């Protein structure tokens, strides 16, 4: 869905996305990082289960909810990535205790 402009050659850090190790740009938010590795849909809708994509990138639409370091329903567009972060896309509702 998105590609990086050629001018951008910033440092990268390693995170885990859906269990896979990925190198992403330091300075990206979690949501931008997910887009940059080609993941378009980061969660499914609560009621129907259909795939959704982040819509606003500024923290008002709540379509960017993902699991970060084991805690679910976090707005990925507001969280800067950190080395070693574990990110998981959310399919269906969150589980209690995760």
């Amino acid at each position, binding site marked *: 869905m*998105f*590609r*990086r402009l050629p*001018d951008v050659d910033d440092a990268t850090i390693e995170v885990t996305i859906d269990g896979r190790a990925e190198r992403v740009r330091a300075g*990206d938010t979690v949501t931008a990082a997910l887009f*940059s590795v080609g993941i378009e849909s980061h969660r499914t809708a609560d*009621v129907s289960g259909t*795939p*959704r994509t982040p819509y606003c990138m500024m923290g008002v639409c709540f379509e960017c*909810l993902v699991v970060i370091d084991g805690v679910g329903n976090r707005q990925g567009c507001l969280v800067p990535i950190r080395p070693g972060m574990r990110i998981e896309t959310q399919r269906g509702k969150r589980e209690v205790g995760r």
Partner: protein
Amino acid sequence: MMDLRDTYDVAVVGAGPAGLAAAANCARAGLMTVLFDEQASPGGQIYRAISTTPLKRDTIFGADYWSGAKLVRDFLASGAQYVPTATVWSLTREREIGVSVAGSARMVRAEQVILATGALERPFPVPGWTLPGVMTVGAAQILLKSSGLVPHGRTVLAGCGPLLWLLAWQYLNAGLCVDAILDTTPRAIRAIRHAPDFVLSPYLAKGLRLLLAVRRRVRVIANVVELRIEGRSHAESVVYRTISETEQRLPVDTVFLHQGVVPNVNLAMAVGIEHRWDEMQLCWTPVLDAAGNCGIPGIAVAGDGAGIAGAEAAQARGEIAGLAAVKALRPETLGRVLPDETTVRACLKRAMRGRAFLDAYYQPMSQFRRPIGNTIVCRCEEVTTGQIIDTVALGCNGPNQMKAFLRCGMGACQGRLCGLTVTELIAHARGVAPQATGYYRIRPPVKPITLAELAQLPKNESALRSVART
């Protein structure tokens, strides 16, 4: 670990132009000032990523964007305490702020509170707007500015308003080809009476230049009156109709929607600030005096959250709100280190010039504010127009009863993406004005915080008694 004080002279919420200007003025006057913002770096949305963008070429974004850099520098040098990645989730009439940083919630008090939470994009509920591959123009700008990310493949922009053209222009500057702009700007008749003011405003020259540059290189389809996005699990095509023609279809990979911005009212409404329906801008704006004060002592609203007027007006209003706070707490410093209010008001007047024209010219058409039958209106709870209209027929005459019956507005976004649509749908179905129809009752937390965070906040005797069980 937050080294926040328990009380401040002034607390500002939002690091866009209004918040930055307000906080800087207060801090320079020697007031103990704190600014809370949700993002990791200052600038709000209009100056998003201004200090962190990886795209340093100033040929992409334009001079207006970079003018924000000075504002940020001045703020950072002013002495105000800057708290980024801070989520303000509640505010009381007694000016107690509930804020959460790094997973830990705190209550902070202030003598004066200035809300500068800005704007968000007006919902654009067309069929298919919830499909992956569909985002707002603002989202596209954020990805561009913050991360240097641009869309793959066939890209279509749809809607109306200056930001649409700005994005197209910025994409062209970045070397990206936009396949088409589907322009839903209504016919200009209503706007004509505001034209003289617009001609004299700074917006005309800038706007024309931009528009011409885009029109030279991008296919613009004007007078679009119907629009829907189709696809199975992803946006695959955009189907549209213009005034004079039959339906046309464009294959797409990404669609960016925009039809103007509206105040982000949730925090202001949660504290009980009265809002009124603006008939021109078709949204709710707070009822304020000339200094930005609302009816609640010590609380003011500045910036686009006080009424959409653009970045320069926001900055001026922020300055004015800051000066008002200084006047209330340390009037002896006025006129010494601070800008003169008359000058700032003159700036504001200049910045407001031509806005009425823009408002009238770009007022979205009703079919894009009140969608047809099956269109999802509440994205979070997946409630459609048809369901809402049927429930009006059941005697449900306002958004709060509607919320109770259909759950629209009960999702995570707290009505930010459906509230205006629901108000207008109910108003229209009943033949009643939006002002009389009302809006959702908003209460804290206006942003989510965890139960554990809430649990460790202070509780006084009466609070503990209220939950005690014999």
